[in-house]
């Protein structure tokens, strides 16, 4: 045995390492019935009662600990599921939006195919991106401009889903009053400064549909001898070279006559719900103006059960 403690320590360390490696070697080389394996199995057998006893003693604490863990996990799961719920809600909203947009766009095709608007008319579908901040002016901004072929004074119509032959949402919206490269401003027909030449369908009563400060439509200059009744359809007459003939505007809501006035004043309920405009169509190609509305009379039945928005 060396006297130098350092040498002795190193010798002891080396010896123990060698013994360890020997044990490892023997363990891997011996069969399962070998000495070391047998010792292990004996140790397992000796410890099993202790483990069994400990298991029973510790069980309540273990249960308590597990309960805490599960409670924490449940809390985490709850939070995670809340996040997932919010994500799914967001996705649902996005899907609903996409579905509605799809329906709207499909509706546009249906309108052209159904002949509600002139067959030769070309549309640019635009999304409403801004609205007038006050009711003193009634306009909207759309996301299409000169780059998409939009020019001043082009007529704009609604792009709402057609429902069972109803004209709701498919009427005249207004005209383009300002154009930028990728945006335009559309004056709504309900703007107090708007005036559209129109006729009451069927009875050929002409006049002008004007916007009111209240956000409604008033048809003026209709001769008093014309038998205007409620629920008749008012369409554009095509006079004025801006709006092509036959675009539906709304339904006659009330007919007013004042003794001192030689014209009737007709309140028109628009087909378009201007408070929820999302998409519109700008008529970009040259369309037929003037020359009466007989052609459209055959397209738009007088008593279609058309409903206002």
């Amino acid at each position, binding site marked *: 045995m060396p006297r130098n403690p350092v040498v002795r320590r190193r010798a*002891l360390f080396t010896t123990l390492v060698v013994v*360890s490696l020997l044990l*490892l070697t023997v363990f891997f080389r011996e069969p399962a019935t070998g000495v070391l394996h047998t010792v292990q199995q004996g140790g397992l057998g000796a410890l099993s009662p202790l483990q069994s006893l400990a298991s029973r003693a510790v069980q309540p604490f273990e249960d308590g600990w597990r309960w805490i863990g599960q409670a924490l996990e449940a809390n985490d799961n709850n939070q995670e599921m809340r996040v997932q719920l919010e994500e799914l809600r967001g996705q649902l909203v996005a899907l609903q939006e996409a579905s509605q947009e799809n329906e709207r766009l499909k509706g546009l095709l249906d309108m052209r195919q159904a002949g509600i608007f002139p067959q030769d008319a070309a549309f640019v579908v635009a999304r409403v991106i801004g609205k007038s901040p006050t009711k003193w002016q009634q306009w909207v901004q759309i996301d299409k401009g000169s780059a998409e072929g939009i020019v001043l004074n082009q007529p704009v119509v609604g792009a709402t889903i057609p429902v069972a032959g109803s004209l709701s949402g498919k009427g005249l919206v207004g005209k383009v009053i300002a154009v930028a490269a990728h945006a335009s401003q559309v004056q709504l027909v309900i703007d107090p400064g708007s005036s559209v030449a129109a006729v009451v369908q069927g009875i050929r009563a002409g006049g002008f549909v004007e916007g009111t400060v209240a956000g409604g439509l008033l048809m003026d200059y209709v001769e008093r001898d014309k038998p205007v009744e409620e629920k008749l359809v008012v369409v554009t007459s095509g006079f004025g070279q801006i709006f092509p003939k036959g675009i539906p505007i709304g339904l006659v809501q009330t007919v007013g006559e004042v003794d001192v006035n030689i014209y009737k004043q007709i309140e028109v309920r628009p087909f378009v719900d201007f408070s929820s405009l999302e998409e519109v169509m700008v008529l970009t190609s040259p369309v037929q103006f003037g020359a009466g509305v007989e052609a459209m009379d055959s397209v738009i039945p007088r008593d279609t059960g058309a409903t206002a928005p």
Partner: protein
Amino acid sequence: MTALAPRLLSIFKLGLLIVAAVAIQTALISRLRILGVTADVFLILVVLVGVSRGAVTGMVFGFVAGLTADIVFLDPVGLRTLVYLAAGFAVGRYVEEFGLASAWVIVLVTAVVSLASQTIYGLFQFATGPEGALFAMMRSQMLPAAVFDGLLAAPLYLGLVRLRVLPPPGASEPSFR
């Protein structure tokens, strides 16, 4: 005879410590999982003995504790023996050489030794067993277990000092204050 008695007593205490480690590890600690890992009481005790009693006692204690752990945990006999032996020796030598500025270093040393020993253990398993995700284990098992071991070392050390199994920290010895 008078010089031999304290030494025998000390050996007896360390022997009891191993028996206690078996009981505590199998009955309690193995059932206590934090972040999915359990602490290794054997390794912690090896570190504490190495810190308190030096390299020689540390490595002998590591050898016996490792051998016991191999038998108890049904590991290849000699594997933990070798790892704990090296750990006890390394920690003892470190303390003999540099001392301990603070008892909190025990926590750090335990964590480092735990990480090192698990790495060796993991490499061995990687070499002899089926291919395991060593780096994944590093993140999910080794690091949390090292932290756990380090944190458990402090109360164990204080408890063993109070029970007079390990020498109490003197003026020049590590203190948790």
